[in-house]
């Protein structure tokens, strides 16, 4: 069995100089930051997340953890959805409202991560696309998959002016479905602006930021009718665990029973029934106490192991501690550690 870690993060330079160098003129010479500052310090004053990407070090870490293949996710490149659409009112400075900036950044990031993956057959990556500029996103999805060999597209939904189920984004999903590559929803904990108001510590922001936004994305995709319109599209929700799934499904089914006919008219069955079709996936760190219960509720074919390395408190024991669990069947462990990810990313 090839153990797959579906969620490891590319260490990006804080000043984006690694990506910027590939962006071409005029961006490569620009000294202005690519992204609006969030005001949060995710590095715990430089204690974590610092350093440079080092493929050899990554492979060594994978050996220690017992991982054969890693899927590389972006880190701050997820913030690309924060770049405001040109023409919309915004409090952000003019420089970052350039309508080509998001697309140029996505191309450069995808080139960068494809270069890294070329260094080892044990590394695969997903790309990013500018959801705020749909025609450019479609072209980049095609290029990322067909020319760069990336295995999916990841989006962080915060910053977008519509929910992920909106028809605005359907052409992107159509392209992904045709290419047989998944959409990964992976929100970044410290994004602005929706949750900027209440949290007064990074701990608080990190707790509610990614998790609540992902519940929002999940709901938007479902009520927007995506599992009906794009029934072959695989979608995954990453890095917030799995314990929320039974909760949200029951709540959605109840709301759907009362209001679904008029407010989610595209859906022909209950949200829970769509989830059980098996095209929606979720990542687990492997040590969640709720995991066995979740598998009871939704089956064991849609959960994948994703350590979130290097932001991974269980390292290097994440795989072995999942394998040692007595409350999960061996067959389920094999699916979580290998089979499900192969199917999600189309690696078979």
């Amino acid at each position: 069995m090839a153990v797959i870690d579906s969620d490891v993060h590319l260490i990006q330079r804080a000043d984006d100089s690694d990506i910027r160098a590939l962006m071409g003129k005029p961006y490569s010479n620009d000294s202005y930051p690519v992204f609006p500052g969030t005001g949060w310090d995710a590095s715990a004053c430089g204690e974590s997340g610092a350093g440079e990407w080092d493929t050899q070090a990554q492979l060594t870490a994978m050996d220690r953890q017992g991982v054969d293949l890693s899927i590389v996710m972006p880190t701050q490149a997820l913030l690309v959805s924060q770049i405001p659409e040109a023409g919309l009112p915004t409090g952000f400075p003019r420089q970052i409202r350039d309508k080509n900036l998001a697309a140029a950044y996505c191309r450069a990031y995808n080139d960068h991560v494809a270069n890294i993956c070329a260094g080892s057959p044990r590394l695969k990556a997903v790309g990013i696309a500018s959801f705020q500029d749909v025609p450019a996103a479609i072209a980049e999805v095609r290029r990322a998959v067909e020319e760069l060999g990336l295995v999916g597209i990841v989006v962080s939904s915060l910053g977008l002016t519509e929910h992920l189920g909106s028809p605005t984004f359907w052409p992107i999903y159509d392209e992904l479905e045709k290419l047989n590559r998944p959409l990964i929803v992976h929100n970044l904990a410290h994004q602005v602006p929706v949750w900027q108001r209440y949290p007064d510590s990074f701990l608080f922001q990190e707790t509610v930021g990614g998790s609540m936004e992902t519940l929002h994305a999940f709901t938007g995709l479902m009520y927007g009718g995506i599992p009906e319109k794009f029934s072959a599209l695989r979608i995954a929700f990453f890095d917030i665990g799995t314990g929320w799934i039974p909760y949200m499904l029951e709540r959605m089914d109840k709301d759907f029973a009362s209001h679904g006919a008029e407010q989610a008219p595209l859906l022909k069955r209950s949200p829970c029934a769509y989830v059980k079709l098996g095209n929606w996936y979720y990542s687990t760190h492997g040590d969640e106490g709720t995991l066995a219960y979740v598998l009871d509720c939704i089956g064991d074919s849609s959960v994948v192991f994703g350590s979130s390395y290097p932001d991974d408190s269980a390292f290097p024991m994440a795989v072995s501690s999942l394998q040692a669990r007595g409350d999960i069947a061996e067959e389920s462990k094999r699916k979580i550690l290998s089979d499900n990810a192969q199917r999600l990313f189309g690696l078979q």
Partner: protein
Amino acid sequence: MVKSDIAGTDKRAVQQRGSQPWIYDMDAHIIDTDEDIRPFLDERYRKRTGSLLALDEWHRGLIRRPRAPQDLTERLRVLDEEGVICSVLFPSRAMDVNTMRDKAFVAAYCRAYNSFIADVCRKASALKAMAVLPFDNVSAAVEELTRSVTKLGLVGVVISSYGLQEHIGSVKYWPIYQEMQRLNVHLGIHNSIQGGPIGDLRADTFMFQHTVGRPAATMTDCAALIYGGVVEKFPRLRVSFLEARVAWVPYWMEYMDRKWEKRRSDAALLTRKPSEYMTGGNFFYSAEPDEKALPYVLERIGEELIIFASDYPHGGSAFTGDLLGRSDVSDRAKTKILRENGIRLLGEEIDKAEYENDLRSAL
């Protein structure tokens, strides 16, 4: 919705305690209208035109109109039929009062609502009620809290955090919690359907906002109270999380612990893991009687922390029949959910002999 076969199930409810009502319903609603509140408002506000409260843009159509708040006869008939001895009334609209910015009016509205609901409660001993407070006007809130409890006999405070200037764990609001602890009344976290800031701009149906708004706001409030150190600072303050179900609780315990392990210095007041505060006895959670996850949650957090909340007469409200008829929840747990835990949340003494009797009759 009250089940149509209620006649069959309520018999079981009543039979459990002979013919005496015994159930504590920790969240029912009055349907409060401007006409109810206006007579209780300070003179200078009574002639305000337009809606007294700020309205959101959603067309709800959820509240069952035929049962008007003034129709106490019908309400009391339902309580009797269901075996409810204590029904804690929450507003339907007044919990949104803190979304408004007119500081003096918000305080006046709260006083008027509290006087109104106290008036309703005087008409039947089974009716208790929660107060609303002008949270962002802290000194006025403390003053009104004291009046609501000592003069009006209200049993707690309801808060919907949407619209507050700071998160509900903020030091700003601590004087309110201190007074609540002193007065031995509880805080009911009951987020309105507006639900919270998430999705304000992006939700494009009421259903969408309803599905995600309240869970997001409630889980945020839970994190705010814990990270903000409220449970640590006010160890006798009791809090209920309402109408958000219970299946989120094990998820959130684990998720917060994981985040906190990495950044303990961001929550400097904590002396325990976040999950330990969630199960330490201060927090109570209302379950839907037919919630599938209930047995699992009972297994994870024990039987002492889950309360019964009918949501009557709002859409979706379910009475006890669904819970009493379940074979996957023990009779002992049912008794605790339907009665004992509610008594503890209210800060009332549980009579030892009565408690034993409850258990005997349930088991």
